[in-house]
């Protein structure tokens, strides 16, 4: 066996070392920002903080959570994440179920969906449509334009297709309609993939910031990701319409770090669940007949 040769054992240990170093390098920047967020403001400004807080205190977090602007954007983000995920999952499930049936018109609908993956109107015309519908400064502007996720729909459709047709045929004989067979057969059988896609939709909504930036003309209506983006990019004042006094406080280094951490926290919390699901989610639908 090659595994016992000296050369391979030498390779295996240096490989393990290399992989450890790379893994740690991947999250080290995050650790540093976390350390800064818990450090005293003076230590942070004087560049004394590396990977452990200097002059430990929670001041930055208290000041962030004390800020009504921040809290309001946090609430908005939760709202859009919940509403957006629900809406998007409802559309995904119904469209995926329909596309997984064989019926007259399926080919047309499929192309109608797939074509949007190939070609799009781009930023300006989409912006014109959303503003033309007077959705600006409403939650709808954040959840409607992205409500149909074609990629997720295709994944879900492939999953539905893998469920034996006999189940639905039996249900039809018992008098169940399409809607009944969707809710009583297909949905219960696909809970794991529903959970996976919902998690991905939630992460997507939580992370989205650009739609907030262009569709919310009032900065008090910014969801958290957009709010953070504006604070972090505050060096670039042209894009900012937040009151300069507020900006000064919010863009202090420790406070900024605290905000970054709070913005990343929900993702870090769901990450273990995501990790359990996403390999399965990615390979789901990879095998086709």
């Amino acid at each position, binding site marked *: 066996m090659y595994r016992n040769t000296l050369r391979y054992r030498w390779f295996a240990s240096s490989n393990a070392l290399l992989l450890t170093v790379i893994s740690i390098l991947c999250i080290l920047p995050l650790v540093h920002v976390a350390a800064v967020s818990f450090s005293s403001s003076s230590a942070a400004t004087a560049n004394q903080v590396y990977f452990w807080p200097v002059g430990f205190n929670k001041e930055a977090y208290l000041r962030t959570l004390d800020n009504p602007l921040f809290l309001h954007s946090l609430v908005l983000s939760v709202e859009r994440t919940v509403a957006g995920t629900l809406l998007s999952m409802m559309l995904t499930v119904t469209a995926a179920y329909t596309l997984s049936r064989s019926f007259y018109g399926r080919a047309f609908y499929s192309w109608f969906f797939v074509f949007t993956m190939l070609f799009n109107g781009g930023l300006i015309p989409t912006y014109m449509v959303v503003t033309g*519908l007077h959705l600006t400064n409403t939650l709808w502007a954040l959840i409607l334009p992205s409500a149909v996720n074609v990629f997720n729909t295709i994944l879900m459709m492939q999953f539905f297709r893998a469920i034996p047709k006999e189940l639905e045929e039996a249900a039809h004989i018992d008098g169940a309609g399409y809607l009944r067979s969707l809710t009583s057969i297909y949905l219960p059988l696909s809970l794991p993939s529903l959970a996976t896609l919902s998690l991905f939709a939630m992460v997507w909504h939580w992370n*989205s910031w*650009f739609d907030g930036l262009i569709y919310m003309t009032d900065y008090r209506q910014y969801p958290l990701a957009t709010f953070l983006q504006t604070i972090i990019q505050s060096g670039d004042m042209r894009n900012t319409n937040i009151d300069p006094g507020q900006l000064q406080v919010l863009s202090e280094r420790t406070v900024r770090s605290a905000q970054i951490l709070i913005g990343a926290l929900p993702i870090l919390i769901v990450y273990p669940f995501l990790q359990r699901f996403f390999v399965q989610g990615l390979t789901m639908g990879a095998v086709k007949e």
Partner: protein
Amino acid sequence: MEWKKGRIRFIRQLPLHLLILPSIICLLIFNYAPMAGLLMAFQDYKPRLGILHSPWAGLAHFRYMFSYPDSVQVIYNTLLIASLKIVANTVVPIVFALLLNEVRTVVFKRFVQTFVYLPHFLSWVILGGILTDVLGNKGIVNNLLSFTGADPIFFLGDGTWFRITVIISDVWKEFGFSTIIYLAAMSGINMALYEAAEIDGAGRFKQTLHVTLPAMVPVILVVSTLALGNILNAGFDQIFNLYNPLVYREGDIIDTFVYRVGLMGGSFSFATAVGLFKSAVSFVLIVVSYRLAYRFGNYRIF
């Protein structure tokens, strides 16, 4: 008789049409209506007149795009950054997957995977915030560099360094996640092939070269041909959250340019023309790359 049969079938299948209707309406409004809005690219769009009454401009905006030095530079930047990213994001994950495949301890493998997949799930707002802090003038990286006596590097303020930073930080975010598909391909390799190679006297390196890599070729081909469709996608979220006026010349890409010129500057028609150019080229490339992926790797989305 024929139409009657069709009507009965339609009524029987009506629930299916109704189920998909909401999605179709959403796509019509938010995906297909903007495509019609691309007509703006051939107009001198005035918000006051709307798309129906704005005067026509023919191909003027397209001619302007290819003669205006700024937009030519932007197209060049996009192609350069995107193609470097495609190369880096193909090579690094393959090498990393090969190295990770040699790890036999499951716990250690999990540990590595947990750490390297994480950045993929954080948005560029968060990562951009982290990078501007870490790579800034007074950031930890320049702080550590100063101990070696080196001059501070303006990672985000110098054009060349900005491009390098963009490529490397993109690899940082995505390489871990991209290994998943290669790891899946490797786990599907028949163990008997390795045993046979072993009997023929191949060491682990030769086995990797002659068993593992050939087995990964179809996946590599599919992934890299599909990446072709992204040749004009240099990563809006990333650039937008990292760049600043100092590096507009070297770092500006089509998407950021469209945003600044169109939504910030109000040149709606010109920005739409640039956007249409991008969409049209991407469309051709995506169709070609899907065809190639189908030919090489039997890849189908349906």
